[in-house]
């Protein structure tokens, strides 16, 4: 089992509860999708799992490959194999993409060791080519002045370079045009492996046409309320989330 979440409850610090008992298991090699109405807590789940300081966990547990995620700092969670492709990737002026990635790779190496510069740049350029990115972007500051689509692509570049064992993609399709969506999805699919799991958060089935999930969960009021196969995405596409009103009633 890769990612196991049990009864996870969390809130914005000193604010109301947003996650109200999330239960989720994603075995290695599987892709799970989460869909749900706006404001249901999908992005909060991704941030809580990665240790965003704005949130506090009030109950429950989350384990990655048997490691207690909730007791780790955000950087420890990343080094343990967790990756979040952000809904809104952050701009970091003054830090080049190449230096940023080298620092992230160095953080995974034993004290005093660094990535070999030649092989690092060779791999970086090859990965950028795979994602259709301009090689000049290695020297540009992380996400600074990037379009929405370029930022998303840059996050996927980081994912491919860091090779996590569990990746969470938070609305990675938003801001991508049709061609970019296909290229990014191919990049994600290239990383699919029997030892790796994915959690894909999205509003639209179009992403799931490219990254075909094994399981689709419906998120509502801070927890998973339905679990089904990939056909659930087709149902949502056609009928929306009206059926959830019956649950509310």
């Amino acid at each position, binding site marked *: 089992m890769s990612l196991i979440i049990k009864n996870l409850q969390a809130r914005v610090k000193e604010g109301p509860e947003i996650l109200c008992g999330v239960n989720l298991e994603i075995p290695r090699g599987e892709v799970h999708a989460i869909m749900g109405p706006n404001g249901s807590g999908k992005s909060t789940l991704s941030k809580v799992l990665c240790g*965003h300081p704005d949130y506090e966990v009030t109950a429950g547990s989350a384990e990655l490959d048997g490691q207690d995620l909730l007791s780790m700092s*955000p*950087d420890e969670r990343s080094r343990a194999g967790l990756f979040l492709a*952000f809904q809104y990737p952050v701009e970091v*002026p003054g*830090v080049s993409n190449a230096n*940023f990635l080298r620092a992230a790779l160095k953080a995974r190496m034993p004290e005093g060791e660094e990535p070999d510069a030649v092989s690092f740049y060779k791999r970086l350029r090859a990965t950028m080519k795979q994602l259709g990115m301009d090689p000049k972007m290695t020297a540009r500051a992380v996400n600074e002045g990037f379009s929405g689509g370029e930022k998303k692509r840059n996050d996927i570049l980081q994912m491919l370079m*860091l090779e996590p064992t569990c990746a969470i993609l938070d609305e990675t399709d938003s801001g991508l045009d049709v061609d970019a969506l296909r290229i990014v999805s191919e990049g994600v699919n290239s990383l699919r492996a029997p030892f790796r799991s994915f959690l894909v958060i999205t509003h639209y089935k179009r992403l799931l046409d490219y990254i075909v999930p094994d399981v689709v969960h419906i998120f509502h009021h801070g927890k998973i309320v339905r679990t089904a196969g990939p056909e659930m995405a087709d149902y949502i596409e056609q009928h929306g989330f009206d059926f959830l009103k019956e649950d509310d009633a």
Partner: protein
Amino acid sequence: MMNKDAPLPELPDRLNENWRYGRPHQFATELAGRMDGRGKGKLTTNAPQECILHTLSPDADALPLSIGSDYFLRRAAQEQSDVLRIVLPKGEWGTEEAPLRIRCHVDSFYAPRLCVELQPGCRAHILEEHLHGSNSALVCLRSYTVHPNAELRLELRETGDNASCAMNISRIQCGENAHARQLSSYSGLAWVREETTGELCGAGAELLLLSANRPEKGQWIDQRCLQLHHAAGARSRALYKNVLRGASTCIFGGNIRVEPNAHESDAYLSNLNLMLSPEATVHSLPQLEIMADRVRCSHGTASAPIDPEQLFYLRSRGIGETDARAILADAFLNEVYLLFRQP
């Protein structure tokens, strides 16, 4: 030239607007006390001998302008300290990789006078290093005259220990179509006072004043700059950035002054501070004085801790908190270095 018989003005104190922040009386008194001792130091350069003079030119070498430190300006001018005058004719002098060097070694107290003139068509990369011995003080009067169509890139690096202090009173004059940029940085000194006046004296003149510092512990960095537009159609920029740690203090007073008839001036002034400690303090006062028409002038100042979203983004990629903070602090100052190096 200065009248040596003129009475010295009073020591600056808090009533002097340009010394309003910090500990003006304490610093000024200490520095004035050090000036009573016999000056020791050495001013050297690797400029060709034919460009070097050790006497001033009454016509060319006017004193720098004071931004509040008239007392020290006058006293330093009256000291029998070293003078180094460099006149660089048309041609290339130094490169980014191998700049022309001016080195100022400071023992105890030293008050040298440095005058550098770039004649028309001259392009010079200059690295000016001020190296302090332990517990030393420097009052340096610096003048750089950049004649029409000349280009100056000047880096000033000042290093010393936490018992040393420095005052640089500087003037950079740019003639028609002359371009000048200065990057100053101060490291390790207990107290620094920098006064820089950039004068734009001809159409098409461009001046870029930059500074990047990392004060820590109880260090004080007090910087004042004046972008003085005498001529129409000139452009100036100032960007002063600091990363503050410990109980350090940065004081910044900047002024863009556009003289009558300096129409169509274009100027910007910015002071940005990254606060890495709750004990650190910043006083920032940018100002504008516009006396001409059709000008584009503005200023900005901001002081803030590290953006928590940026910090989380780096940590979410596995970079530990200490390293992430260091990367973001370097990144904050990086803009200054990039501006200095850009073609």
